[in-house]
């Protein structure tokens, strides 16, 4: 029996096509994945992301603990509500998960991790907490709705109370604030503006309905995947995993090397990866017919590689992909598609931002 989010009855009511997503019944679409994709790029869409794991990290040594746990440095977080994206690494420098951490004060943080990795993440968080004065509390009483798109803030704002509207007024990207019964963050996974809203499970259905009434289109995991890939955002388990160095997953920017004496988990291994050199994650663009798909083989003069994520980009009208390839890759590579080798262009792994092509 799969797990269901608090919004499951809403998905059924809307006629969603539900699929098994790592043990959860989740909507893949509500009809057309491509229409949902366009709604987020052009107007406002919402996703049930209640399957993600929310963990509060609190205690006198919460800051020191997270500085030990994460490759990015929470010392960068000095303003209340500011968020940080980071990898959580194992001793071998592989990525256990990627996550967002929100800072309230140096003794109080909120971490949001993936759903598919929930148990191993919680085990790791607890194991690494050994010796730190810190408590690790999963917050299973919450649901989460991501509202994304150029009109997302305005439409979501229309269902907020006056106090909530005031709390989010002028909030910059990558911040979160507790406003009455909602935690509202300017984060997301689409490359558009918007909010991720954490709400009590008991209130989730009514918030969802209010957002629907405000003209926010329900969107499934299918559109979520094409949106994040256009935005050049990694998907854990596909673009990186425990056997991938963040340096080979376009996550070098999330590693804070200084101060050199911050001994975060995986640091020694990463220093070796850096000295030896690693493969890298690049973007691929194919304007001919056909769709690049995860798992397809890649070859170039510098050696072999593989597509980690590939799709048809509804915004661009052609296929895009992310691929792990040798670091000295040239401007083109060949991809094996349906038994033929096709030449495609290599670009930075980012394709669309704020509704527009960045190619």
């Amino acid at each position, binding site marked *: 029996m799969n797990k269901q989010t608090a919004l499951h009855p809403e998905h059924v009511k809307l006629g969603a096509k539900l699929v098994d997503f790592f043990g959860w019944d989740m909507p*893949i*679409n509500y009809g*057309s*994945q*491509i229409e949902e994709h366009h709604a987020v790029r052009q107007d406002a869409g919402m996703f049930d992301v209640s399957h993600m794991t929310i963990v509060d990290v609190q205690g006198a040594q919460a800051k020191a603990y997270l500085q030990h746990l994460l490759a990015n440095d929470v010392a960068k977080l000095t303003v209340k509500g500011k968020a940080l994206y980071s990898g959580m690494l194992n001793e071998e420098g592989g990525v256990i998960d990627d996550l967002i951490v929100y800072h309230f004060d140096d003794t109080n943080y909120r971490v949001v991790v993936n759903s598919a990795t929930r148990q191993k993440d919680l085990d790791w968080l607890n194991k690494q907490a050994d010796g730190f004065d810190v408590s690790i509390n999963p917050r299973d009483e919450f649901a989460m709705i991501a509202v994304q798109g150029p009109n997302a803030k305005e439409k979501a704002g229309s269902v907020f109370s006056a106090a909530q509207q005031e709390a989010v007024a002028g909030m910059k990207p990558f911040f979160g604030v507790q406003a009455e019964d909602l935690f509202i963050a300017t984060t997301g996974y689409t490359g558009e503006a918007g909010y991720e809203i954490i709400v009590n499970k008991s209130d989730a259905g009514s918030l969802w309905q209010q957002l629907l009434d405000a003209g926010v289109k329900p969107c499934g995991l*299918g559109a979520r995947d*094409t949106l994040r890939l256009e935005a050049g955002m990694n998907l854990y388990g596909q673009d990186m995993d425990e056997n991938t160095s963040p340096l080979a997953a376009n996550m070098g920017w999330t590693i804070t090397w200084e101060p050199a004496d911050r001994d975060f988990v995986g640091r020694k291994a990463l220093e070796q990866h850096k000295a030896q050199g690693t493969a890298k994650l690049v973007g691929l663009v194919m304007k001919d*017919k*056909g*769709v690049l*798909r995860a798992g397809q083989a890649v070859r170039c003069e510098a050696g072999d590689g593989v597509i980690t994520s590939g*799709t*048809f980009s509804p915004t661009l009208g052609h296929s895009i992909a992310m691929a792990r390839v040798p670091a000295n890759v040239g401007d083109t590579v060949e991809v094996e598609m*349906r038994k033929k080798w096709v030449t495609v262009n290599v670009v930075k792994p980012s394709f669309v931002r704020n509704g527009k092509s960045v190619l």
Partner: protein
Amino acid sequence: MSNIPKELRYTATHEWVRPEGDGTFTVGITEHAQDLLGDMVFVELPDVGDEVSTGDDIVVAESVKAASDVYAPISGEILAINGDLEDSPELVNSDPYGDGWMFKIKAEDPAEVEGLLDAEGYESTIEED
């Protein structure tokens, strides 16, 4: 329940076949098939004049989810292809038995169609899925 028109013939690989009465047949994929594949993004059709044999993979239907082959349900010559699918592959989703047709074929042996599934037979094969 998926829409399976009574007047059409079917294959177990989800093609439908409509007799046009003059030894020619129109072919597409079923509503059930398009639902499994999801939003169509490219449809690569054969060339008019191609001689095809039963079971040949002659169309690639590429959706957001996967690339799938569509097979010739009978042997014959391709008389026409649906050029509208070039710019509007989504017709396969919105109207699989109408504007989403893929090609017309002149049967080498029109009797071959008698060997295909009827609506009831097709329905029982997809219930087994």
